[in-house]
C-alpha cells in the first residue's frame, strides 16, 4: 500500500466545527472530565492521547453528541448542541461518522446490512442504489464483495474495524471519529487502518478526531495532538489537558508526563505508583 502524505493543517483561525467549552462529566459519584475545552477545526485531524481511563472516549462521545456533559457546553459549528431541536439534532448528527473501539457492528445483521443501516434508516434511496453505495464503501476499505454476506462473528479484528469504517463512511460524513482504531490489531493491519484514515482525510476532505494509544498513528495522522491526564491524578487547580500542539513537539515536550507517555517510558509512572 502506498504511504499517503498528510495534508497541511488548516490555520487555527478557522471557526471550530466542534467545540467543548468548560465541559465536565460525572457518572454518579465518579468524575471523569473537569473543565475541558477543546476545539476541532474544519479539515484537521485532531488526535486525543492519554492513559487508559483518562476520558478520551468520553471526550469523543461528547464531541459527537452521543453523551451530554454534566456541566459546560458542546458546540457544533459555533451553535450549542442543546439549543437544537430533535429534528435538527437528527439531521446534524448524520454529518458525523463514528468508528467505535470494538467496531460495534450489529450482531444480528450481516456486513451488508450493517453498512446499509444508516442509508436505509435515513434516506429514500432504492435498494439497488444502497447496494452500490455499500459495495463501493467496502471496496474503499479493501474488502471484497464476498465479505458482504458474512456475519460480524465470522470476521477478524482488522476486518471488523474496516467494516466499521465502511459503515461510518456510508453516509458521506463531514467529520469522522475514530475510537482506538488500531487497538488489538497486528502492526501491518494497524498500518492499513492508519493509511485508510489518511486516505479518507485526503479523498473526502473530512475533519477527523482520533483517539489512540498508538504512537505510530499519532505520527502518521495527527495535525494536532491533545493529551488528557486522568482526573484522579491531576493536582488541584491544574488543567486536565496537559498538552496541546503538534505531534513532533509532543515527543520533544519537557513535561515528563507527556514525554514519558509518548515514548512509552514507565519510569516516572512507576515512581509515582511506588510512592502511592
Amino acid at each position, binding site marked *: 500500500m502506498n504511504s499517503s502524505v498528510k495534508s497541511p493543517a488548516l490555520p487555527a483561525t478557522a471557526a471550530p466545527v466542534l467545540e467543548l467549552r468548560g465541559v465536565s462529566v460525572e457518572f454518579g459519584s465518579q468524575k471523569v472530565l473537569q473543565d475541558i475545552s477543546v476545539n476541532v477545526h474544519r479539515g484537521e485531524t485532531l488526535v486525543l492521547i492519554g492513559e487508559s481511563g483518562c476520558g478520551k472516549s468520553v471526550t469523543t*462521545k461528547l464531541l*459527537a453528541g*452521543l453523551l451530554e456533559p454534566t456541566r459546560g457546553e458542546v458546540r457544533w459549528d459555533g451553535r450549542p448542541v442543546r439549543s437544537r431541536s430533535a429534528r435538527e439534532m*437528527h439531521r446534524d*448528527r*448524520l454529518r*458525523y*461518522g*463514528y468508528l*467505535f*473501539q*470494538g467496531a*460495534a*457492528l*450489529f*450482531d444480528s445483521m450481516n456486513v451488508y446490512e450493517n453498512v446499509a*443501516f*444508516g442509508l436505509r*434508516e*435515513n434516506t429514500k434511496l432504492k435498494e439497488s442504489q444502497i447496494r452500490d453505495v455499500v459495495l463501493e464503501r467496502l471496496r474503499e476499505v479493501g474488502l471484497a464483495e464476498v465479505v458482504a454476506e458474512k456475519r460480524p462473528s465470522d470476521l477478524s479484528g482488522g476486518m471488523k474495524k474496516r467494516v466499521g469504517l465502511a*459503515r*461510518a463512511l456510508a*453516509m458521506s460524513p463531514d467529520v469522522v471519529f475514530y475510537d482506538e482504531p488500531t487497538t488489538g490489531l497486528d502492526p501491518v493491519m494497524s498500518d492499513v487502518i492508519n493509511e485508510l484514515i489518511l486516505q479518507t482525510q485526503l479523498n473526502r476532505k473530512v475533519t477527523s478526531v482520533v483517539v489512540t494509544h498508538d504512537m505510530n498513528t499519532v505520527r502518521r495522522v495527527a495535525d494536532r495532538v491533545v493529551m488528557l491526564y486522568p482526573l484522579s491524578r491531576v493536582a488541584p487547580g491544574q488543567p486536565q489537558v496537559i498538552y496541546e500542539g503538534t505531534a513532533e513537539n509532543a515527543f520533544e515536550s519537557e513535561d515528563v508526563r507527556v514525554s514519558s507517555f509518548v515514548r512509552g517510558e514507565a519510569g516516572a509512572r512507576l515512581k509515582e505508583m511506588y510512592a502511592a
Partner: protein
Amino acid sequence: MSASLLDTDPTPIHTVGRLVTNFIIAIGDLTRFLFLTLGGLMGQLPRSRVLWPVMYEVGVRSVPVIAVTGLFIGMVLAVQTYDTLRMYRLESRIGSVINVSLVKELGPVLAATMLAGRVGCAMAAEIGTMRVTEQIDALKALGANPISYLVVPRFLACFWLIPALTLIADGLGMFGGWVVSVQMLGVSDHFFWLYSQQFITAFDVISGVMKSMFFGAAISIIACHRGFHCGSGAEGVGRAATDSFVCSFIAILVLDLVLVILLNNIFRLLWALGFTVL
C-alpha cells in the same frame, strides 16, 4: 454538620431511607422510560423488517413452552382438585373449578411468567450486550433512535401477542384438565363441559386477556429498561437478565391484584347497568 453525619456508619434509618430513595428513583426512571416508549409509538411505527423478527421471537417461538406449561398446569389442577371434590361428591363440577381458575388467573399469570422468563430475560441480555459493546451508541450515531428501534417493536410484540399466548395456555390447560378428569379419573364428559360453561362468563375470558396485555407491556418495558441500564461486562449482562425476570414477576403479581380489583368493580358496575351478556 452534614459531613460528620455522612462520615458515621449508616444507621438502620439511613439504610431504610436510602432504600426508599433508590426505589422512588427506580420507579421514576422506569416511568420516564415508559413515556419515552409511548412517545416512540406516537411517531412512525417500526418497519416490518424490524418488527416481524421480534414478533416471531416473542410469539411463535414462545408457543411450545407456553403450551406445555398450560397443558401440565391443567392436568395438575385436575389431579389436585379431584380428591377434595370427591369427598363432597362434587367431582362432576371439576371442570368449572379447573377452567375458571385457568381462564381468570392461571392462564394469564403463567403465560406472562413464561414470557418474562423466556423472552424478557433474552431482551434484557440482548439489549444489555448491545449497550456494553456500544451498539446502542452506534444506533444513535447512525441516526436511529434506540427507543424507537429497539424498545417499541418489543413493546408492540409483547402487547399484541400475549393475548394469543394466554388463550393458548387457557385452551391447553382446559384440554389437560379434561384428559385427566374425564379420560383418567372417570368424570362425566357432559358435566365437565356443562359446569365449565355455566361458571365461565365472557367477562372472565375478556378480563384474563386484558390483564395479559398489561402484563406483556410491563414485561417488555422492564426488560428493555434493565438492558439499557446494564452494568459493564458479562456480570452486568447476567444481572440485567436476572433483574428483568425478578422485577417482571413482581410487577405481574402487583398488576394482577390491582387489575382484579379494578375489573371486578367494572364487572359489578356493568351488571348493575344490565349488561347481563357478560
